[in-house]
């Protein structure tokens, strides 16, 4: 059998199988790929995953077909023709150039595609650090106001809602700066709203992973890690810690809920009122809090006079920069 025969056969099988598998995947599996479509970030990250998969399928199938073909056709047991060594078997300019070109084009395309998606989607729900450069409209304004204690949020106003996520061994709590800075273990969010999560930690590194919202941002002590997402469906979602933080890391999860804007408003105002007495005793709202003097995060304060919490003035005012 000559060269073109082998290659033509393999190519035919490859094209047919790849197209079939791609179509099946795109229409049957793709819409169910995590993290679903509860937020804009989730939908676009699902789209990215599916694009990658549609490109990966022909790669996988191509190599598998080749291996299977080699095992079936070029096995010594089949007693085919003797292989031919020599220069022709060592190098083949066309094959080499084609391989390197194709892999390079695919890879560079993927990097470009990923970059565009990342920037267009304001960081795709990932941790953007304290000074995000790809913020959605209105986010910086809302965050700056929140820190100054002048932030507001109301239904149908299309405002960004800042929410603070405070991680500690081994739980998450949340502060709502636009509602007097009350702190609660419940994460309730309004639908059709852009949320600016401000994630920080009081002790070791954790990671705030709101699975269905497609948000993941590490919680570092003394760092404000900002992540954006825009909700577009109501319903429950899971929050898990996804960075190892000690013994009970596995138990560090809870559930949040996206509700209608009116319901959210009711809940927030009710909680603000109910928690008012506690909120007074909390440290003033800030992007980060210095761990307490009891040794969390390895802190050791010999004389015990260190102020346990940073003030807005020391840490907060700088962030986020415009």
């Amino acid at each position, binding site marked *: 059998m000559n060269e073109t025969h082998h290659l033509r056969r393999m190519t035919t099988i490859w094209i047919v199988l790849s197209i079939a598998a791609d179509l099946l995947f795109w229409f049957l599996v793709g819409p169910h790929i995590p993290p679903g479509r509860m937020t804009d970030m989730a939908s676009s990250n699902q789209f990215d995953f599916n694009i990658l998969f549609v490109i990966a399928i022909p790669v996988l199938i191509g190599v598998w077909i080749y291996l299977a073909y080699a095992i079936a056709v070029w096995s010594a047991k089949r007693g085919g023709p003797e292989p031919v060594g020599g220069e022709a078997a060592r190098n083949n300019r066309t094959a080499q150039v084609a391989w390197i070109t194709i892999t390079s084009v695919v890879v560079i395309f993927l990097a470009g595609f990923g*970059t565009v998606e990342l920037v267009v989607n304001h960081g795709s729900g990932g941790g953007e650090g304290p000074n995000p450069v790809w913020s959605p409209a209105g986010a910086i304004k809302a965050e700056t106001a929140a820190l100054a204690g002048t932030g507001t949020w109301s239904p149908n106003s299309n405002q960004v809602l800042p929410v603070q996520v405070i991680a500690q061994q081994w739980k998450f709590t949340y502060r709502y700066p636009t509602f007097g800075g009350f702190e609660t273990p419940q994460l309730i969010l309004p639908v059709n709203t852009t949320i600016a999560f401000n994630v920080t930690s009081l002790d070791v590194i954790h990671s705030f992973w709101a699975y269905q919202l497609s948000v993941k941002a590490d919680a570092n002590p003394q760092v404000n890690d900002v992540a954006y997402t825009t909700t577009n469906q109501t319903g429950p979602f899971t929050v898990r810690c996804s960075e190892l933080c000690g013994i009970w890391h596995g138990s560090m999860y809870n559930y949040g809920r996206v509700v209608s804007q009116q319901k959210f408003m009711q809940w927030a105002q009710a909680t603000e009122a109910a928690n008012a007495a506690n909120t007074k005793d909390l440290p003033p709202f800030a992007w980060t809090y210095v761990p307490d003097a009891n040794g969390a995060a390895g802190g050791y304060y010999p004389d015990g006079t260190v102020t346990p919490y940073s003030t807005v003035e020391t840490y907060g005012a700088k962030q986020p920069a415009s």
Partner: protein
Amino acid sequence: MTERPLATAGEASTAPRVPWTQRQGWLSQHLGTAIIGGILGYTFGHWLGNAISSNYQYIVNSGQNAIADALALIFGVVGWLLGIGALNYPLAKLAGRQPEKEVEVNDWSKYFRYSTNHKTVGLQYVVGVLLFMFTGGLLAMAIRTELLNPTTHYFSADTYIKIVSEHGTIMMMMATSIVVGPLGNYLVPLMIGSRRMAFPRIEAFSFWIFVAGYMVIFSALPYGGFPTGWTGYAPLQTQAGPGMVSYLFGFAVIGMGMMAAGFNIAVTIINYRAPGMTWSRVPIFVWSILATAALLTLATPTLFAAGLFGLLDKTAQTAFYVTEHGGSSYLWENLFWFFGHPEVYIMALPGFGIVGEILPVFTRKPLFAYKVGAAGMIGVSLLSFFVWQHHLFQSGINPDMRPLFMLTTELISIPTGFIYLVGMGTLYKSKIRFEIPMLFAMALYFNFLIGGVTGVFLSDVPVNVTVHGGFFVLSHFHYTIMGGLLFAFMGGLYYWLPKMTGRMMNKKIGLLHFWTMFIFFNLTFFPMFIIGLLGQPRRVFTYAKNLQGLNDFSSISAFLLGFSFLIFFFNLVWSLYISPQKAPANPWDSLGLEWQTATPVPPHNFERIPVILTDPYHYSEASAPAVADLGGDERVPAVSSHDGSGVA
């Protein structure tokens, strides 16, 4: 040993004066004296640490004396090295005395001594890494047992996280040496036509310090374990108990072995090639080991320094990683991964080299695109220094640099893809003999493909939001390290053990081993991609109820995968001791230089230093030139392809 005149095994023992340290029998230096030295050093260090520091207020308050723990381990390792004899030569030099020359003891006890013979060291490493692997494997079985059920727990949360951490660390440490140690040391000199490694004492040192590292990391368990996983992130690291000292110092000790081995191997390959062994004739395995050696030498110092900083934080109360005292938790993350990503290629490249040697032999074809393959390995090792922050995409550091790290990470798949070009080109119109080594080599191509493709998913920042820190990553790197490197290592053992031990491995048991390992490896790890996508984070002792089915499937497959390793160990014992079959000098009809010497390999490898005439891949070539002139009349003919398996 190097200056020793050419002598046969029998004559070696008649060398003029044998120092007591190297006598035959008990009254000399060997594993036993090393253990005694280690225990004495450990006790002394502990005493010293308590003597100098037990009155410090913070030690009194915490009830933990990390200084004593650290000094105990440090002096323990020094005692171990003194006991085995690693310091005899340098200490004599320091004292201005003429050091006594090493004389190799020529019985089985040489495997328990400070041997400077690269073949002895290679075999010592085989046993060493298998022991390492076995320990790590037992811990893996414990992990999968706990994950059988989300609500019924076999271990406490505390014990579980320590098992996971110990498993990961032991496996990662083992994997850095699994090929470079046994096969690198044994085969590189044979393949480049050398009689020795460049620095035989450094070679012996790298093995014995590797064993010390194993014991140091193992000592974490009696110390109460460490809760940080193999990545050891601070401040959790700073918060952890004395087991953390073992982790930090353990990486420093293993690091010394890695640097020593890398440096020695790189110098050997560059300087000890036989005449005619030009860079375009160097076997592809040697290229892969050279690229790995470069990574070992250049990346490990970062790990060493990072571990030292951590030790200082724990003992001397410095604050490298303590945020509120001016340190940074990002510092550890960056130092660790600046080493850690090159590390993952330390655990990949040697596997590519092994399959590159196996394929031509069992396809009876020359290696396709040899130069592209070698360039790919060099390219991978260079690029691997520029990707480390892909482990920190969601960490909040350098968020604006993510597109750059996404690009560099994805660029690595180009040189990695060269390995596929080489493999597939070699298979083209070949005549494949499905011996055990070939099966493992083909399995690498299957497994690593899945590992590599999922790596591209991970490096896409938007997709990384979902898959980072979960079971998807876990599966990805098991596919590359276990599915790639470990499969290649197994193939390499089946292929080269006949040369190293003079015994053939049993093919029937080998087939059983291969198929159970291949099938259950995939059944264990493939479901983990789905588990990860469905939201299970890594390193958790409990998980969502709806994931129990998949987890149980994975666990049961994992137990059977564990069983396949028992089959392998059984095959070793069977083929080496119970029913040994003598191996011919060249059972696979290979053209490789390492197969052209006698089996067992003569003490000096080659009677005369061979003159290399061409590369070792002229299979199925009618007028192929001889590979090497071995001196005398025997020219090595290029074996023409012939049918049959080559094994009786």
